[in-house]
Protein backbone atom coordinates (compact mmCIF):
# COMPACT_ATOMS: atom_id res chain seq x y z
CA UNK A 1 0.00 0.00 0.00
CA UNK A 2 2.67 2.49 1.05
CA UNK A 3 4.67 1.39 -1.98
CA UNK A 4 1.89 2.45 -4.38
CA UNK A 5 1.61 5.80 -2.61
CA UNK A 6 5.35 6.38 -2.96
CA UNK A 7 5.16 5.64 -6.70
CA UNK A 8 2.31 8.14 -7.07
CA UNK A 9 4.15 10.80 -5.10
CA UNK A 10 7.26 10.38 -7.27
CA UNK A 11 5.13 10.63 -10.42
CA UNK A 12 3.45 13.75 -9.05
CA UNK A 13 6.79 15.38 -8.31
CA UNK A 14 8.08 14.52 -11.78
CA UNK A 15 4.95 15.99 -13.39
CA UNK A 16 5.21 19.15 -11.30
CA UNK A 17 8.87 19.67 -12.24
CA UNK A 18 8.04 18.96 -15.89
CA UNK A 19 5.24 21.54 -15.79
CA UNK A 20 7.67 24.22 -14.70
CA UNK A 21 10.41 23.24 -17.17
CA UNK A 22 8.45 22.77 -20.43
CA UNK A 23 8.71 25.61 -22.93
CA UNK A 24 5.66 24.40 -24.81
CA UNK A 25 2.82 25.72 -22.66
CA UNK A 26 0.33 23.13 -23.86
CA UNK A 27 2.59 20.34 -22.57
CA UNK A 28 3.02 22.25 -19.31
CA UNK A 29 -0.76 22.45 -18.88
CA UNK A 30 -1.14 18.72 -19.50
CA UNK A 31 1.59 18.05 -16.93
CA UNK A 32 -0.16 20.22 -14.34
CA UNK A 33 -3.38 18.35 -15.12
CA UNK A 34 -1.49 15.15 -14.28
CA UNK A 35 -0.45 16.69 -10.95
CA UNK A 36 -4.10 17.35 -10.07
CA UNK A 37 -5.14 13.89 -11.16
CA UNK A 38 -2.52 12.18 -9.00
CA UNK A 39 -3.40 14.51 -6.12
CA UNK A 40 -7.00 13.34 -6.35
CA UNK A 41 -5.88 9.69 -6.27
CA UNK A 42 -3.77 10.46 -3.18
CA UNK A 43 -6.76 12.15 -1.53
CA UNK A 44 -8.73 8.99 -2.15
CA UNK A 45 -5.98 6.91 -0.53
CA UNK A 46 -6.08 9.26 2.47
CA UNK A 47 -9.82 8.44 2.84
CA UNK A 48 -11.06 11.84 1.69
CA UNK A 49 -13.34 10.95 -1.25
CA UNK A 50 -15.18 14.29 -1.10
CA UNK A 51 -11.99 16.25 -1.68
CA UNK A 52 -10.82 13.73 -4.29
CA UNK A 53 -13.97 14.29 -6.36
CA UNK A 54 -13.64 18.06 -6.17
CA UNK A 55 -9.97 17.88 -7.13
CA UNK A 56 -10.63 15.57 -10.09
CA UNK A 57 -13.55 17.61 -11.44
CA UNK A 58 -12.18 21.10 -10.91
CA UNK A 59 -8.40 20.69 -10.83
CA UNK A 60 -8.02 18.14 -13.58
CA UNK A 61 -10.91 18.97 -15.92
CA UNK A 62 -12.13 22.56 -15.65
CA UNK A 63 -8.88 24.34 -14.80
CA UNK A 64 -7.09 22.54 -17.62
CA UNK A 65 -9.81 23.52 -20.05
CA UNK A 66 -9.67 27.17 -18.99
CA UNK A 67 -5.86 27.18 -19.36
CA UNK A 68 -6.11 25.66 -22.82
CA UNK A 69 -8.65 28.29 -23.88
CA UNK A 70 -6.27 30.97 -22.57
CA UNK A 71 -3.35 29.46 -24.51
CA UNK A 72 -5.40 29.40 -27.69
CA UNK A 73 -5.97 33.11 -27.38
CA UNK A 74 -2.34 33.97 -26.66
CA UNK A 75 0.88 32.18 -27.60
CA UNK A 76 1.66 28.52 -27.38
CA UNK A 77 5.40 28.76 -26.79
CA UNK A 78 7.22 30.50 -24.01
CA UNK A 79 9.91 32.93 -25.14
Amino acid at each position, binding site marked *: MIFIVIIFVVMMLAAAIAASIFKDLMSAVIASCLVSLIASILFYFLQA*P*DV*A*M*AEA*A*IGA*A*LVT*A*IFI*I*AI*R*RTKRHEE
Partner: protein
Amino acid sequence: MRKIVSLILLAIVALGIALCVMNIPFGAPKTKVGNHYINKGREETGAANIVTSVVLNYRGFDTLGEVTVLFIAAVGLSAVLATRKKKVEKEIEPSSMILNTGCRFLFPLILFFGAYIFVHGHLTPGGGFQGGAIIASAFLLTYLGCRGRRVSERRIKVTESLSGLVFIVVGLLGLAVGGQYFLNNFLPKGILLSLFSAGIIPIIYIAIGFKVGSEIAGIIDKLMEES
Protein backbone atom coordinates in the same frame (compact mmCIF):
# COMPACT_ATOMS: atom_id res chain seq x y z
CA MET B 1 21.09 36.65 -9.58
CA ARG B 2 17.32 36.40 -9.76
CA LYS B 3 17.54 32.63 -9.79
CA ILE B 4 19.67 32.57 -6.65
CA VAL B 5 17.30 34.92 -4.83
CA SER B 6 14.28 32.87 -5.82
CA LEU B 7 16.01 29.66 -4.73
CA ILE B 8 16.80 31.16 -1.34
CA LEU B 9 13.19 32.34 -0.96
CA LEU B 10 11.97 28.89 -1.94
CA ALA B 11 14.23 27.28 0.66
CA ILE B 12 12.89 29.63 3.36
CA VAL B 13 9.28 28.80 2.43
CA ALA B 14 10.06 25.07 2.40
CA LEU B 15 11.70 25.34 5.82
CA GLY B 16 8.65 27.14 7.20
CA ILE B 17 6.23 24.55 5.84
CA ALA B 18 8.42 21.71 7.16
CA LEU B 19 8.50 23.27 10.62
CA CYS B 20 4.70 23.68 10.58
CA VAL B 21 4.06 20.11 9.42
CA MET B 22 6.45 18.69 12.00
CA ASN B 23 4.38 20.18 14.79
CA ILE B 24 1.15 18.49 13.66
CA PRO B 25 0.79 15.25 15.60
CA PHE B 26 -0.59 12.72 13.14
CA GLY B 27 -2.97 10.15 14.58
CA ALA B 28 -3.35 12.03 17.85
CA PRO B 29 -6.78 12.19 19.52
CA LYS B 30 -9.11 14.68 17.86
CA THR B 31 -10.03 18.01 19.30
CA LYS B 32 -13.20 18.38 21.35
CA VAL B 33 -15.25 19.78 18.50
CA GLY B 34 -13.97 17.08 16.13
CA ASN B 35 -15.03 14.38 18.56
CA HIS B 36 -18.44 15.98 18.86
CA TYR B 37 -18.92 16.00 15.08
CA ILE B 38 -17.87 12.36 14.77
CA ASN B 39 -19.89 11.02 17.69
CA LYS B 40 -23.01 13.18 17.64
CA GLY B 41 -23.06 14.40 14.02
CA ARG B 42 -25.30 11.68 12.67
CA GLU B 43 -28.05 11.95 15.25
CA GLU B 44 -27.98 15.73 15.43
CA THR B 45 -28.17 16.43 11.70
CA GLY B 46 -29.55 13.17 10.27
CA ALA B 47 -26.92 13.12 7.51
CA ALA B 48 -25.00 9.87 7.09
CA ASN B 49 -22.04 11.69 5.51
CA ILE B 50 -20.30 13.52 8.34
CA VAL B 51 -18.48 15.86 5.96
CA THR B 52 -21.83 17.08 4.64
CA SER B 53 -23.18 17.56 8.15
CA VAL B 54 -20.21 19.80 8.93
CA VAL B 55 -20.29 21.69 5.63
CA LEU B 56 -24.01 22.43 5.57
CA ASN B 57 -25.16 22.22 9.16
CA TYR B 58 -22.49 23.20 11.63
CA ARG B 59 -20.67 25.43 9.16
CA GLY B 60 -23.55 26.34 6.85
CA PHE B 61 -22.86 30.05 7.00
CA ASP B 62 -19.28 29.53 5.79
CA THR B 63 -20.65 27.62 2.82
CA LEU B 64 -22.80 30.63 1.94
CA GLY B 65 -19.60 32.67 1.95
CA GLU B 66 -17.88 30.16 -0.35
CA VAL B 67 -20.76 30.28 -2.81
CA THR B 68 -20.63 34.07 -2.70
CA VAL B 69 -16.90 34.06 -3.50
CA LEU B 70 -17.55 31.91 -6.57
CA PHE B 71 -20.39 34.23 -7.60
CA ILE B 72 -18.15 37.29 -7.31
CA ALA B 73 -15.48 35.57 -9.41
CA ALA B 74 -18.03 34.79 -12.14
CA VAL B 75 -19.41 38.35 -12.08
CA GLY B 76 -15.91 39.81 -12.24
CA LEU B 77 -14.94 37.66 -15.18
CA SER B 78 -18.04 38.57 -17.14
CA ALA B 79 -17.50 42.25 -16.31
CA VAL B 80 -13.94 42.08 -17.64
CA LEU B 81 -14.96 40.25 -20.79
CA ALA B 82 -18.02 42.42 -21.44
CA THR B 83 -15.91 45.53 -22.02
CA ARG B 84 -14.42 44.04 -25.18
CA LYS B 85 -16.10 44.46 -28.48
CA LYS B 86 -17.97 41.50 -29.82
CA LYS B 87 -16.08 39.87 -32.61
CA VAL B 88 -17.71 38.97 -35.85
CA GLU B 89 -18.88 35.38 -35.76
CA LYS B 90 -16.27 33.27 -37.41
CA GLU B 91 -17.25 30.38 -39.59
CA ILE B 92 -16.79 27.33 -37.41
CA GLU B 93 -16.04 24.07 -39.09
CA PRO B 94 -18.76 21.61 -38.03
CA SER B 95 -17.53 18.64 -36.05
CA SER B 96 -17.56 15.19 -37.54
CA MET B 97 -20.56 12.92 -37.13
CA ILE B 98 -18.83 10.53 -34.73
CA LEU B 99 -17.74 13.36 -32.42
CA ASN B 100 -21.15 14.98 -32.58
CA THR B 101 -23.04 11.78 -31.82
CA GLY B 102 -20.64 10.85 -29.03
CA CYS B 103 -21.11 14.23 -27.36
CA ARG B 104 -24.86 14.06 -27.63
CA PHE B 105 -24.82 10.57 -26.16
CA LEU B 106 -22.53 11.45 -23.24
CA PHE B 107 -24.07 14.82 -22.35
CA PRO B 108 -27.23 13.54 -20.56
CA LEU B 109 -25.26 10.76 -18.84
CA ILE B 110 -22.80 13.24 -17.33
CA LEU B 111 -25.68 15.51 -16.32
CA PHE B 112 -27.39 12.62 -14.56
CA PHE B 113 -24.17 11.66 -12.81
CA GLY B 114 -23.68 15.20 -11.51
CA ALA B 115 -27.31 15.37 -10.37
CA TYR B 116 -26.91 12.01 -8.64
CA ILE B 117 -23.89 13.28 -6.76
CA PHE B 118 -25.55 16.40 -5.39
CA VAL B 119 -28.90 14.76 -4.64
CA HIS B 120 -27.15 12.06 -2.61
CA GLY B 121 -24.78 14.54 -0.97
CA HIS B 122 -25.98 13.67 2.53
CA LEU B 123 -25.55 9.91 2.02
CA THR B 124 -22.48 9.36 -0.15
CA PRO B 125 -19.25 11.28 -0.73
CA GLY B 126 -19.69 14.37 -2.82
CA GLY B 127 -22.14 17.20 -2.78
CA GLY B 128 -23.19 20.42 -4.39
CA PHE B 129 -19.75 21.67 -5.37
CA GLN B 130 -18.57 18.38 -6.85
CA GLY B 131 -21.88 17.72 -8.64
CA GLY B 132 -21.95 21.26 -9.99
CA ALA B 133 -18.41 20.92 -11.33
CA ILE B 134 -19.34 17.67 -13.07
CA ILE B 135 -22.40 19.32 -14.65
CA ALA B 136 -20.20 22.18 -15.86
CA SER B 137 -17.80 19.65 -17.40
CA ALA B 138 -20.77 18.24 -19.36
CA PHE B 139 -21.34 21.70 -20.83
CA LEU B 140 -17.62 21.95 -21.57
CA LEU B 141 -17.87 18.71 -23.53
CA THR B 142 -20.65 20.08 -25.72
CA TYR B 143 -18.72 23.28 -26.33
CA LEU B 144 -15.70 21.29 -27.41
CA GLY B 145 -17.51 18.56 -29.32
CA CYS B 146 -20.51 20.11 -31.04
CA ARG B 147 -19.61 23.76 -31.36
CA GLY B 148 -22.88 24.80 -32.87
CA ARG B 149 -24.86 24.27 -29.68
CA ARG B 150 -25.00 27.08 -27.16
CA VAL B 151 -26.82 27.54 -23.90
CA SER B 152 -28.69 30.80 -23.61
CA GLU B 153 -26.96 33.21 -21.26
CA ARG B 154 -30.25 34.36 -19.83
CA ARG B 155 -31.26 30.89 -18.67
CA ILE B 156 -27.91 30.41 -16.96
CA LYS B 157 -28.34 33.68 -15.09
CA VAL B 158 -31.92 32.85 -14.06
CA THR B 159 -30.93 29.40 -12.78
CA GLU B 160 -28.02 30.83 -10.83
CA SER B 161 -30.05 33.60 -9.21
CA LEU B 162 -32.98 31.33 -8.33
CA SER B 163 -30.76 28.71 -6.69
CA GLY B 164 -28.90 31.36 -4.72
CA LEU B 165 -32.24 32.73 -3.59
CA VAL B 166 -33.39 29.26 -2.48
CA PHE B 167 -30.30 28.93 -0.28
CA ILE B 168 -30.89 32.24 1.49
CA VAL B 169 -34.67 31.82 1.78
CA VAL B 170 -34.30 28.35 3.34
CA GLY B 171 -31.74 29.77 5.77
CA LEU B 172 -34.02 32.65 6.72
CA LEU B 173 -36.97 30.25 7.13
CA GLY B 174 -34.87 28.31 9.61
CA LEU B 175 -34.20 31.55 11.45
CA ALA B 176 -37.91 32.40 11.50
CA VAL B 177 -39.16 28.95 12.54
CA GLY B 178 -36.47 27.92 15.00
CA GLY B 179 -35.51 31.42 15.99
CA GLN B 180 -32.01 30.34 16.98
CA TYR B 181 -29.61 30.84 14.11
CA PHE B 182 -29.31 31.17 10.35
CA LEU B 183 -29.69 27.87 8.44
CA ASN B 184 -31.41 26.20 11.39
CA ASN B 185 -32.35 22.64 10.40
CA PHE B 186 -36.10 22.98 10.96
CA LEU B 187 -37.44 20.14 8.80
CA PRO B 188 -37.86 16.62 10.26
CA LYS B 189 -34.66 14.59 10.22
CA GLY B 190 -36.27 11.40 8.88
CA ILE B 191 -34.65 7.97 8.95
CA LEU B 192 -30.87 7.84 8.70
CA LEU B 193 -29.56 6.60 5.33
CA SER B 194 -32.83 7.22 3.46
CA LEU B 195 -32.98 9.64 0.53
CA PHE B 196 -35.51 11.97 2.15
CA SER B 197 -33.70 12.60 5.37
CA ALA B 198 -31.49 15.19 7.06
CA GLY B 199 -34.01 18.04 6.91
CA ILE B 200 -32.87 21.01 4.83
CA ILE B 201 -29.49 19.55 3.81
CA PRO B 202 -30.64 17.95 0.50
CA ILE B 203 -32.58 21.09 -0.47
CA ILE B 204 -29.56 23.32 0.06
CA TYR B 205 -27.20 20.92 -1.67
CA ILE B 206 -29.46 20.77 -4.73
CA ALA B 207 -29.52 24.58 -4.78
CA ILE B 208 -25.71 24.72 -4.50
CA GLY B 209 -25.36 22.14 -7.26
CA PHE B 210 -27.49 24.19 -9.65
CA LYS B 211 -25.71 27.38 -8.66
CA VAL B 212 -22.16 26.08 -9.05
CA GLY B 213 -23.01 24.23 -12.26
CA SER B 214 -24.59 27.26 -13.91
CA GLU B 215 -21.85 29.59 -12.71
CA ILE B 216 -18.98 27.51 -14.08
CA ALA B 217 -20.92 26.75 -17.27
CA GLY B 218 -21.44 30.50 -17.66
CA ILE B 219 -17.70 31.15 -17.21
CA ILE B 220 -16.85 28.53 -19.84
CA ASP B 221 -19.50 29.92 -22.17
CA LYS B 222 -18.04 33.42 -21.84
CA LEU B 223 -14.51 32.24 -22.51
CA MET B 224 -15.46 30.08 -25.48
CA GLU B 225 -17.48 32.89 -27.00
CA GLU B 226 -14.45 35.16 -27.03
CA SER B 227 -11.99 32.68 -28.48
